[in-house]
């Protein structure tokens, strides 16, 4: 007997009792919809993380003073002895390093002719733009020479530009940073938010300008910098790079072998990845929930198929009497169970599609419903039908023809 014929008569059997079929499918529908939503959420979150990593650069290291115990989890660092420009130059000189920039940050009030805005000023080397793969969307970034000489120039982020110059035209204007006049030579491209920190709400100025006239110098360390941003060469293992830079810095800061370092290094990409893993664990948990509802749905299907086998015992006997083999009966009921689940799966896919779009809208990540995800969700439903339909189908196929015919 061909499966096509079996499917047609299966559909007919299901349609003969539409309400019951629908109620039975409910578990499958919910299961499939949640499998799909979960997978789409996981996939969307992964895409978002990849985008974030791409935006910060996956081979960027940030070094800040203060060790783990003193610095705690705080990103701010800066509690220990700062680095100086000689350290930055030494790091830049390593063969595994493509670019490195010291940074010096502080709060500042930026004032234009028409507005003022409390923001963050960040003193950087010209290398900073290379490390961050960041360029001016309008105007230009400052040169190494401007950076070295402490020229009175600034490159400002989108948020700053919007607040100081609501009507546009920021480029070429003069603003004051806590009283220091600077010329806006460039507007940075948008970077968006990384964690709690809005990266577009910054004013970038030459490092020495920031040290000499805005943030101020350090009592103990001449030409100091707060942090060092390092771009490691492509293809170099980040762990190895951390070890090599770390060893050199321990030497430069005369830390005894075995003693705890008074600085630390981290990669933002690693941090984002770690956060992604936490989301993954969450996703696995949710997938587990989805699997449970699929199983519950499967048990419902099994139950209704057993009822159906009992109700149709005479029909089974008749089919056997006119020549159906046990295998034919098995196929018939298996196809029926799978059809039930497949239809439930289809409805679930439609609902899950909506769920995935909704979750993406709420969570603010890209909606990621791929054919692969639809396939998995639908396949899971069909598999549930096969697994839970088998027992009732086998029971039907093993009925004794005579007893089945006598059944009332």
């Amino acid at each position, binding site marked *: 007997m061909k499966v096509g014929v079996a499917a047609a008569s299966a559909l007919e059997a299901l349609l003969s009792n539409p309400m019951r079929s629908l109620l039975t499918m409910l578990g499958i529908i919910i299961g499939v919809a949640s499998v799909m939503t979960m997978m789409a959420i996981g996939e969307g979150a992964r895409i978002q993380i990849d985008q974030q990593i791409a935006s910060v650069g996956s081979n960027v290291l940030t070094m800040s003073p203060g060790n783990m115990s003193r610095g705690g989890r705080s990103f701010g660092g800066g509690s220990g002895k700062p680095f100086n420009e000689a350290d930055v130059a030494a790091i830049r000189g390593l063969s595994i390093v493509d670019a490195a920039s010291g940074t010096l940050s502080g709060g500042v009030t930026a004032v234009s002719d028409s507005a003022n805005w409390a923001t963050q000023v960040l003193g950087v080397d010209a290398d900073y733009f290379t490390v961050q793969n960041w360029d001016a969307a309008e105007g230009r970034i400052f040169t190494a020479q401007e950076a070295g000489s402490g020229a009175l120039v600034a490159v400002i982020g989108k948020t700053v530009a919007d607040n100081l110059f609501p009507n546009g035209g920021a480029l070429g204007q003069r603003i004051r940073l806590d009283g220091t006049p600077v010329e806006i030579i460039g507007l940075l491209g948008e970077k968006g938010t990384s964690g709690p920190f809005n990266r577009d709400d910054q004013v970038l100025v030459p490092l020495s300008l920031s040290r000499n006239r805005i943030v101020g110098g350090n009592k103990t360390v001449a030409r100091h910098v707060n942090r060092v941003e390092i771009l490691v060469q492509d293809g170099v293992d980040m762990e190895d790079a951390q070890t090599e830079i770390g060893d050199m810095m321990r030497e430069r800061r005369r830390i005894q072998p075995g003693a705890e370092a008074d600085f630390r290094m981290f990669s933002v990409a690693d941090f984002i990845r770690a956060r992604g893993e936490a989301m993954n664990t969450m996703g696995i948990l949710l997938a587990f929930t989805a699997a449970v509802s699929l199983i519950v749905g499967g048990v419902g299907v099994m139950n209704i198929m057993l009822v159906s086998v009992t109700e149709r015992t005479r029909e089974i006997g008749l089919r056997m009497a006119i020549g159906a083999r046990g295998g034919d009966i098995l196929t018939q009921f298996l196809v029926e169970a799978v059809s039930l689940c497949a239809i439930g799966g289809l409805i679930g896919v439609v609902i899950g599609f909506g769920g995935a779009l909704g979750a993406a809208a709420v969570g603010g990540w890209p909606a990621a419903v791929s054919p692969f995800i639809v396939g998995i969700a639908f396949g899971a439903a069909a598999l549930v039908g096969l697994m839970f339909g088998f027992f009732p189908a086998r029971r039907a196929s093993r009925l004794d023809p005579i007893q089945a*015919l006598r059944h009332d």
Partner: protein
Amino acid sequence: MSAGDPPPALIACRDVTKVYRMGDQEVHALAGVTLDISAGEFVAIMGPSGSGKSSLMNLIGALDRPTSGEMWIAGRGLSQMSSDELADLRNETLGFVFQQFNLLPRQSALANVKLPLRYARTEVTDADARAAECLELVGLGDRMDHRPMQLSGGQQQRVAIARALVNKPRILLADEPTGALDTRTTEEIMGILTQLNRQGITIIVVTHESEVAEYASRQIHFRDGNIEVDSARPNAKRA
């Protein structure tokens, strides 16, 4: 006849018993029946209720296996056959007509008649035509799209006969086919069976009614699981 050779008759039973066990009670439905039915016969099986008629029909119909004894259908020993082989035998060689018609209620007459072809081992390409032909043979050419509910009892039984005929069986088994029908309809049905018998199909009918048995060329009377009388009737009623 040497030990291994099958008997020449189309249907052969040798010392067949059927014992039903209900708890610790045993019911001897058939107590050693030996019987030959040749191709082309029209046999009526009669006897009081509980005498074993249906039990024998089920064995001949390969729906059930005997407790002991051996049976052959068309030269094949049933005890050696697997349940799949028995299913194929029912599909190809045997046709059933039941007292309760046993039609699928949601299917049209045509679909009901076609059903056995769905289980045929060799693919049937002209199922619709064959089913229609059989329905015409039983006089229901104009009722093919009707569902069982929309047909009278006699018409339903004719659909069932058409279904039994569709895969061209050599043997037609009917257990009280007219038990649920009135006299006039009974005559119609028996007329059809007689006509089929004339075309060469071997027919076995179980019945309580002597008017039905009149049509048969041989009457076998059962009592307590044994053949009591087995008589040829050369002047059977010809419809």
